[in-house]
């Protein structure tokens, strides 16, 4: 016996352990968020006193009070909804409500509900008229007529147990009791408590119960929850136990059934089913009791712990919720307020988030974008490109950033788009997050800046001036190509950072170049349009017209200097030519006037002296003297003639003449007259062409040039070389001949190996009456006349000379076109 007890205890202990394990699981389930601390209870409208509705629509009744008490004991808040049985049952199945307070057990219902232990066992009992005999057992009713409510469980029970063949069926209980009270029948089988209350309410006299309680209603009534809601079921069971222990159950029973059943047998009966269930197990029943008690304690302790844990959890959840809400608020504010367009798209490209800026670009409100695709708002060519990129991002998970131009509704914008995969908490890419910054203004500003810079650069490069700028320390900070070339540098950058001392041939030159820079920087003075000379690489001197100006910062401090210069060497030369031509013309005009006057005066001198000479006696001193006057007047007349030749502007008709033959004639004349120390040669190119000229004047040019050269030899042996050639002067070449038009020219060049012309007088050799010869050797009209003739023929003269080496004079005559020459020749033949 002891041994078997011990084994039983061991088994019980194992069982307890397992059971406790289950219980833990269930309790743990109670923490499931689905098991709310608030439950909705559905109560029937018309099942007094178990369930009914007060006048103001609230659920009332015994079962309602029980549910309230149980909920309170378990810390659950219960709210009640009322409805018909069908309504509340359906609501429980749908999960709209959590529990029903009054459900009788049945196999069918156990498929859809889980039941708590029964809180009410509704035994049936036999009611009799006071005059009718008592019965000891149901079997006594065999031959009696029994009134019963149709389809009531009691009705079933009577039929099932074949109690009596004489049954009177009513539709309601009151009807059954009224038949009894009226003395029509002796016995009614009905639910005990309901029966008692009904009799009391109807005020029917002489009706009492008799015989044993009959278990016609099975296990009785319990709470029901939706099938599987074990957590709530456990709580409700626990609660029922609690209110039984605390006496709350009895108080409620007293409230509703006290009037008819003051002793309240149901307090004993409530566990009857359990006792019956455990009766078969015997001792195990005791163990189960112990187990339940232990469980009870565990559950209470655990419940308290859980409550604490729950409270703690709830406060943490609340805190987290607040944090999240805060975070969300901040995030929301950042996204909404961002000046960038922010959007999120799902994998299919549908917008699931878009801020105001993103929508504004499309002329929409953010909500208009949700659920739609870019193709709905943007041009297709852009969308297809964008979709391709998006696909790549989704496939590779690599964020992209790039610039693009988009034609929005609001116009064309340049944007910088940053797109990154949108991942869920497990890292799966579920879309794309995009942030698009509108950089149109910045881009346009940049483009404007570039354009301005290019324009400035173009201007700097286009102007005919060299331009450079220097820092305060006189290092070059920048320049244009002309300025760079001035230092024989190929690239502009090559000049930057250098100083004049790095570039100049010597220190003196550098000092000269920078002397003015110092004035500009130190005194902040602008030096405008000064001329200075620069030695070129080829040794020639270039003249620059320069301006140097201080560069100042915003505060007015001199930070450097700007210099612009123009190479005016050619211009100066051209101006010199022009001045010379003008001077020659003025002198020619003057000389012409003087010659006219002199001729008038020479007439009497020459004519009268000749007359007088003729009439003077031969060999007389008078005749000799008069002959000298005649000689002088003839010389004077010759000078005047030369001056007139020089000053004459259009004295003879020009014609088309062949240059080679005219020059040839002149050289034949010269060959006969040149002194023997002169080695005269002619170099004549073929096919020179024709000029429109007075041939005698061309001959004068040749004679004057060769004569001058011959005289430059000063009697010493030397060469005089005449060359005649043809050359084309293009627009570039003509820059050195401001008096000439571009075109073909015949050039007569005469050079000698004579003493040369000193540089200080070379500029004046073309002036009339300028001569290097001893007084009496010549009147200085030779080159002036050459120049005058050349000018009269739209030609030019250039003189090159090196002292002690020789001189070369080039004379240019414009050639007529071959056509003009041909026409002229044919006309001449007519």
């Amino acid at each position, binding site marked *: 016996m002891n041994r078997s007890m011990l084994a039983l205890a061991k088994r019980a202990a194992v069982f307890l352990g397992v059971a406790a394990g289950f219980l833990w699981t269930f309790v743990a389930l109670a923490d499931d968020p689905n098991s709310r601390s608030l439950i909705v209870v559905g109560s029937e409208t018309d099942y007094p006193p178990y369930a009914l509705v007060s006048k103001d629509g609230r659920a009332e009744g015994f079962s309602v009070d029980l549910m309230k008490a149980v909920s309170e004991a378990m810390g659950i808040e219960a709210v009640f909804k009322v409805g018909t049985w069908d309504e509340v049952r359906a609501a429980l199945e749908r999960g709209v409500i959590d529990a029903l307070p009054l459900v009788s057990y049945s196999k069918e219902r156990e498929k859809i509900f889980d039941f708590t232990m029964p809180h009410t066992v509704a035994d049936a009992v036999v009611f009799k008229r006071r005059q009718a005999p008592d019965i000891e057992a149901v079997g006594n009713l065999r031959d009696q007529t029994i009134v019963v409510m149709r389809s009531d469980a009691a009705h079933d029970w009577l039929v099932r147990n074949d109690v009596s063949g004489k049954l009177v069926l009513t539709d309601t209980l009151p009807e059954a009791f009224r038949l009894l009270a009226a003395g029509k029948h002796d016995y009614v089988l009905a639910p005990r408590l309901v029966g008692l209350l009904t009799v009391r309410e109807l005020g029917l006299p002489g009706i009492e119960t008799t015989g044993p309680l009959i278990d016609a209603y099975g296990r009785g009534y319990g709470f029901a929850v939706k099938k599987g809601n074990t957590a709530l079921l456990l709580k409700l069971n626990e609660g029922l136990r609690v209110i039984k222990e605390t006496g709350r159950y009895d108080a409620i029973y007293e409230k509703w059934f006290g009037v008819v059943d003051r002793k309240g047998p149901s307090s004993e009966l409530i566990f009857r089913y359990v006792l019956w269930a455990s009766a078969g197990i015997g001792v195990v029943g005791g163990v189960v009791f112990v187990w339940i008690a232990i469980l009870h304690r565990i559950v209470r302790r655990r419940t308290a712990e859980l409550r604490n844990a729950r409270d703690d959890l709830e406060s943490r959840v609340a805190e987290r919720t607040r944090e999240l809400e805060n975070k969300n608020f901040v995030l929301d504010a950042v996204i909404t307020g961002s000046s960038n367009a922010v959007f999120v798209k799902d994998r299919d490209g549908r917008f699931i988030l878009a801020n105001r800026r993103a929508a504004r670009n499309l002329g929409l409100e953010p909500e208009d974008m949700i659920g739609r695709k870019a193709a709905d708002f943007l041009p297709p060519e852009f969308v297809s490109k964008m979709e391709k990129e998006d696909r790549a991002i989704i496939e590779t998970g690599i964020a992209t950033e790039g610039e693009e131009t988009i034609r929005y509704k609001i116009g064309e914008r340049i944007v910088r788009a940053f797109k990154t995969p949108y991942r869920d908490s497990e890292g799966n890419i579920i879309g794309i997050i995009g942030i698009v910054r509108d950089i149109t203004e910045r881009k346009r500003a940049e483009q404007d800046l570039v354009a301005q810079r290019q324009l400035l650069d173009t201007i700097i490069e286009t102007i005919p001036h060299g331009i450079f700028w220097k820092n305060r320390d006189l290092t070059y900070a920048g320049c244009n190509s002309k300025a760079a070339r001035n230092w024989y540098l190929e690239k502009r950058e090559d000049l930057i950072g250098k100083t004049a001392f790095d570039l100049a041939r010597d220190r003196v030159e550098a000092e000269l170049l920078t002397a003015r820079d110092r004035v500009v920087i130190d005194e902040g003075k602008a030096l405008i349009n000064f001329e200075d000379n620069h030695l070129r690489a080829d040794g020639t001197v270039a003249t620059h017209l320069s301006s140097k100006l201080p560069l100042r910062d915003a505060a007015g401090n001199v930070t450097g200097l700007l210099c612009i210069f123009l190479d005016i060497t050619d211009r100066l030369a051209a101006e010199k030519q022009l001045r010379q031509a003008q001077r020659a013309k003025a002198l020619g005009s003057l000389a012409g006037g003087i010659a006219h006057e002199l001729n008038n005066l020479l*007439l009497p*001198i020459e004519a009268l002296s000749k007359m007088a000479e003729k009439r003077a006696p031969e060999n007389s001193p008078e005749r000799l003297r008069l002959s000298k006057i005649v000689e002088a007047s003839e010389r004077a007349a010759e000078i005047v003639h030369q001056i007139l030749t020089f000053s*004459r502007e259009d004295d003879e008709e020009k014609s088309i003449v062949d240059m080679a033959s005219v020059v040839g004639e002149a050289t034949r004349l010269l060959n006969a007259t040149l002194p023997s120390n002169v080695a005269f040669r002619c170099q004549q190119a073929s096919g020179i062409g024709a000029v429109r000229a007075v041939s005698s004047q061309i001959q004068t040019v040749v004679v004057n040039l060769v004569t001058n050269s011959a005289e430059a030899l000063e009697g010493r042996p030397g060469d005089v070389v005449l060359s005649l050639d043809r050359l084309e002067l293009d627009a570039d070449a003509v820059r050195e001949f401001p008096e000439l038009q571009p075109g073909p020219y015949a050039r007569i060049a005469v050079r000698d190996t004579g003493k040369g012309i000193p540089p200080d007088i070379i500029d004046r050799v073309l002036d009339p009456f300028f001569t290097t010869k001893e007084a009496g050797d010549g009147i200085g009209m030779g080159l002036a006349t050459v120049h005058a003739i050349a000018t009269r023929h739209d030609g030019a003269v250039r003189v090159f000379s090196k002292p002690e080496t020789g001189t070369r004079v080039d004379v240019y005559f414009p050639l007529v076109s071959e056509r003009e020459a041909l026409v002229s020749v044919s006309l001449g033949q007519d």
Partner: protein
Amino acid sequence: MAHILVIDDEELSLFTMREILEEAGHTVVTAGDGMAGLALQGAQAFDLVITDMVMPHKEGVQLIVEIRERDSRIPILAISGSGRSRNTDFLELARQHGANAVLTKPFSEEDLLNALAVCLETDG
């Protein structure tokens, strides 16, 4: 022998020509400008007119034109100092307007008498 009108604004020129012409046996009347010359030509019958081209009051060309209007046959000899200046060829102009011969100053006794002979032969 010829009766000759000589017109020149230059006194020395007039004197020189009178010397040469009277030596050669001609009679000479002189005028110091074109106006006086034209008046004399209208008043007397001359065999020949010698006129300078550049003169005050009346240019030689104008004088020749007016003499020719009055007398188409009288021989005229035009003389000039430089002969040509500023694109204007006075002696060429004189020829075009009726001068029978031209002569450039300075000229010699022979030059003048030769030119005179040419003029009078033409006339003859």
